């Protein structure tokens, strides 16, 4: 293989994120634990950091190790990234979704080890079902990235990279906290010769009975009254097994198994509490990947399957009901997907690294309210990594895709340029990208029939295009990035009133979304790292009629995150602030959700050997008025104690 391409491939695969590089640069020797976590990485920064599949896309990498000693959900891990909007229907264990760049949650893909996750029926992924302790890092790539990742990536993609074995060892972590919340996780790993294996598990439980405050008479009094959340308990178990075996000098087989099961209450909005509604879910995926090299080419063959089941008890359209009564049937939904994929990468001339990917599969759904349905999916993608003179890399991609009977082509391109080869401005990098793609209607949107919620089998895909440009500074101590984007959406699927009370999904909405994303991280003396991110979002409806020109609901115009953390050999700690500005609650800019400021802090010490004890406080201001979508309250002040060790 030509040396230049080897370097490019290595850099694309292994380029570390800025924060990790900063942390490694800033850290003194931290004892055995850190040495285990910070495995040596061959740093060859010849291509932009971020996703392997979308080089030069605007991206943020979140290392889970940076949050050791903290009780973090996947949603909370994502909170440090710009361009991210998080919505949680309560505290731990309750549904949480992510959306990128103002898109909806089901317009953003979430992948686990490259395998797309969807809610049953194809909708938004519930991040609360994904255990954070089983992950190594999270890569957030923003923009219309259908060409690189496939249909549905209109706002961007969240890649969850699971942990993999690095050494022989084991670890355990236990946390207990407010409102009956506890988490126990453990893992064992083995790596020797050409084989490695990791098994990890996590158990979570919470009573969820946190106090909250709400205004009873908002028109005449700003006063709040206190209540306690009910039926918000949750229990979950999750496991991950990852095994890799070197089969030859250039061939490796890797197998991933992830499974989880949980039960949680569905408390409902505080205005219409549903104390008898429950949700039970089980799901898992199995994937196998064989990859190798043949001469100057690299190839990968992969197959995976997913199965998910969701059962709702005591659930009705508006209220709850008594599970077991004739008028209160259980609603069950099962979904499955099987997929195969082959990719071949090879050099083309002196400047190109071409990748061709062919994939196909099928997805099924069967449910009380949907009936059984299936559809095939197939795609053919061509991606090129072009190295041009003057430290320019260009990454065009084109994907043709078939989802059921709906076909579309998604083009995309990204480019990066490091204009300076020497001097103090070497870390400067300019980048830009553009993409056009689609999101096919989910099986739920096509077939869900719940009496007042009507199906629409005639739905067409949503379409979007976007363009963005940015500048980054990748220094040894300081990393800064700034990006601006503009997106247009059309044929958006919106649930519209079908008078008098029913609703039906229709391709009726249009929107433009523009924004600005800033991020900075700096390594400070004494092993401190400071980081901050800011997102400005201007999401405007272009729909005909009285919504035209109004802002899209639940898109905060401003979001600010700042964090100061220290990771030392003996003492660690952090403090962080998250501010979300007031945002529209309706489609007419006439009702607003108030701004929310959340302060968190934690402090920990290594007490003996590799045993760390940490104490963490969230929502230090004990603001119990925080709420999210649809009048779901969020917890006030919570406290958690955490012990962890590696052996």
């Amino acid at each position: 293989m030509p040396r230049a391409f080897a370097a490019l491939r290595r850099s694309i695969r292994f380029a570390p994120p800025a924060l990790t590089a900063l942390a490694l640069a800033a850290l003194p020797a931290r004892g055995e634990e850190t040495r285990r976590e910070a495995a040596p990485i061959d740093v060859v920064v010849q291509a932009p950091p971020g996703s392997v599949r979308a080089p030069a896309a605007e991206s943020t990498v979140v290392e889970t190790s940076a949050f050791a000693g903290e009780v973090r959900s996947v949603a909370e891990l994502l909170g440090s990234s710009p361009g991210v909007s998080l919505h949680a229907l309560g505290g731990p264990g309750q549904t949480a979704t992510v959306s990128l760049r103002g898109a909806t949650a089901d317009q953003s893909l979430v992948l686990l080890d490259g395998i797309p996750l969807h809610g049953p029926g194809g909708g938004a992924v519930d991040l609360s079902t994904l255990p954070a302790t089983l992950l190594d890092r999270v890569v957030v790539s923003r923009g219309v990235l259908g060409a690189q990742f496939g249909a549905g990536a209109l706002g961007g993609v969240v890649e969850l990279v699971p942990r993999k074995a690095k050494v022989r060892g084991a670890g355990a972590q236990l946390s207990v906290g407010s409102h009956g919340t506890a988490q126990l996780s453990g893992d064992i790993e083995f790596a020797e010769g050409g084989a490695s294996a990791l098994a990890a598990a996590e158990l979570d439980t919470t009573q969820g009975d946190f106090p909250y405050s709400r205004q009873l008479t908002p028109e005449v009094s700003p006063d709040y009254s206190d209540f306690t959340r009910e039926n918000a308990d949750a229990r979950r178990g999750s496991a991950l097994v990852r095994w890799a075996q070197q089969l030859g000098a250039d061939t490796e087989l890797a197998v991933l198994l992830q499974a989880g099961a949980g039960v949680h209450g569905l408390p409902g909005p505080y205005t219409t509490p549903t104390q008898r509604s429950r949700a039970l879910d089980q799901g898992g995926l199995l994937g196998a990947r064989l990859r190798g090299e043949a001469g100057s080419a690299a190839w990968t063959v992969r197959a995976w399957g997913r199965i998910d089941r969701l059962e709702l008890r005591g659930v009705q359209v508006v209220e709850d009901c008594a599970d077991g009564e004739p008028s209160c049937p259980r609603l069950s939904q099962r979904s499955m997907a099987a997929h195969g994929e082959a990719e071949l990468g090879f050099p083309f001339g002196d400047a190109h690294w071409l990748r061709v990917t062919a994939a196909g599969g099928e997805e099924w759904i069967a449910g009380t309210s949907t009936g059984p349905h299936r559809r095939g999916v197939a795609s053919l993608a061509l991606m090129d990594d072009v190295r041009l003179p003057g430290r320019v890399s260009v990454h065009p991609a084109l994907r043709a895709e078939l989802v059921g009977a709906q076909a579309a082509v998604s083009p995309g391109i990204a480019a990066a340029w490091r204009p300076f080869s020497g001097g103090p401005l070497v870390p400067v990098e300019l980048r830009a990208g553009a993409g056009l793609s689609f999101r096919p209607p989910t099986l739920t949107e096509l077939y869900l029939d719940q009496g007042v919620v009507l199906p629409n089998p005639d739905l067409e895909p949503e379409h979007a295009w976007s363009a963005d440009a940015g500048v980054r500074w990748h220094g040894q101590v300081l990393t800064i990035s700034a990006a601006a984007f503009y997106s247009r959406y059309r044929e958006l699927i919106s649930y519209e009133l079908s008078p008098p009370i029913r609703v039906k999904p229709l391709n009726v909405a249009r929107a433009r979304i523009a924004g600005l994303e800033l991020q900075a991280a700096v390594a400070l003396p004494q092993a401190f790292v400071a980081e901050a991110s800011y997102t400005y979002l201007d999401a405007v409806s272009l729909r005909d009629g009285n919504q035209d020109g109004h802002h899209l609901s639940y898109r905060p115009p401003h979001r600010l995150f700042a964090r100061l953390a220290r990771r030392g050999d003996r003492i660690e700690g952090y403090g962080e602030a998250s501010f979300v500005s007031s945002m529209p609650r309706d489609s007419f800019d006439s009702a607003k959700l108030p701004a929310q400021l959340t302060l968190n802090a934690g402090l920990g010490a290594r007490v003996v050997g590799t045993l760390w004890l940490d104490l963490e406080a969230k929502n230090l201001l004990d603001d119990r008025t925080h709420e999210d979508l649809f009048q779901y309250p969020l917890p006030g002040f919570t406290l958690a104690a955490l012990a962890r060790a590696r052996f």
Partner: protein
Amino acid sequence: MRRTPILLFALAAACGSAQHTPPPLNTIPLPKGAALKPYDAANPGTPHPYNMAQIGGKVFVALGNLRPDYSVGGPGFLVGVVPSQGVTDVIDLGGADGRQCQNSGAVRTDGTMLYVTCSGDFSGSSGRALVEVDPAAAKATRTRTLAADQAPSGLAVTANKVWMGLSSSASLISVDRTTFALADGSDTHQAIALECPHKIYAYVPDLLTVGSDLYALCSSDQAGVIFRLDSSTGAVRDHANVGATPTALAATPDGRLAVVCSGDNTLWIATPGQGGTVTAQLAHTYAGGTATLQGVGSSARYVFTTASGSNTVQKIDVSVTPAKVVAEASMNAGTAPWDVAPLNDDEVVVSGSLSDDLTGLTAVDFKTAPQ
């Protein structure tokens, strides 16, 4: 002997008549279970009280009688209530087979008779009707069955006709009060079509008669409009834009019209002008915590509104500009207040579409705004 009654009369006059009306019960239980004559005893409906009308010291409320999934559980009902005592009349609107009127929702009176619309089964084509009720006899007197595509929503009563807005289009139909036959919207007379901008849907959520005028709201995916029409012919005289998704209208104490809009959380005041014109002004934008405005009604001095998404009832002075919310009541979570029937300036009866009971609110239930 003669001084005492005179003195009592004078005291009563000084204190106002409201002092003589006993306050409404806080909770007014509605018929449930077998009393709602369920089609399937194992899967009965619940009351789902919707709109109300007052006549003869009673409040009459239409019951949807719907199951939790909003399918029809039994015939439509109209229930008469003495607010201080409770239910006095339970009137089955379903006819002989119990299916002529289903999902009753809107009710209006001309001061003598009551008229109730039945929207029918949302998932089927049965049960659409207009029913005339004699409140004195507490029984349905006449029923006009409507076609499947004539599911009615709001209604208004004039001297000669009962006008109904449709839930499937921006159209009005009418029933002749003498013959109780379909007039506008019949085979010989087209329905009155309102020019209401829309691409996906448009419907007429509420109607009101004031003098010789008929007022109709149109709610669509693109606009909210109030129309002023001739109450005899249905000819459109004028129209004005109001907020998004208007849901209900009522005459204000000063002779204008109050319109609540659930889409954008606003209260609008429409003013009739000379020559049949109408204009509308935004009177109040509700607080962010107030959600899903549903109903509106007026007492001698105030306008009352309900917000089902925040379980609140507002008491509003519309004589000032902008209108001022002078007091507000909070109802229990899960009530979803729908319509409001003011008994006087301090007391109202509220139908809670999810509570399955009526609620009486008095002055002590309203929290007043700081001056």
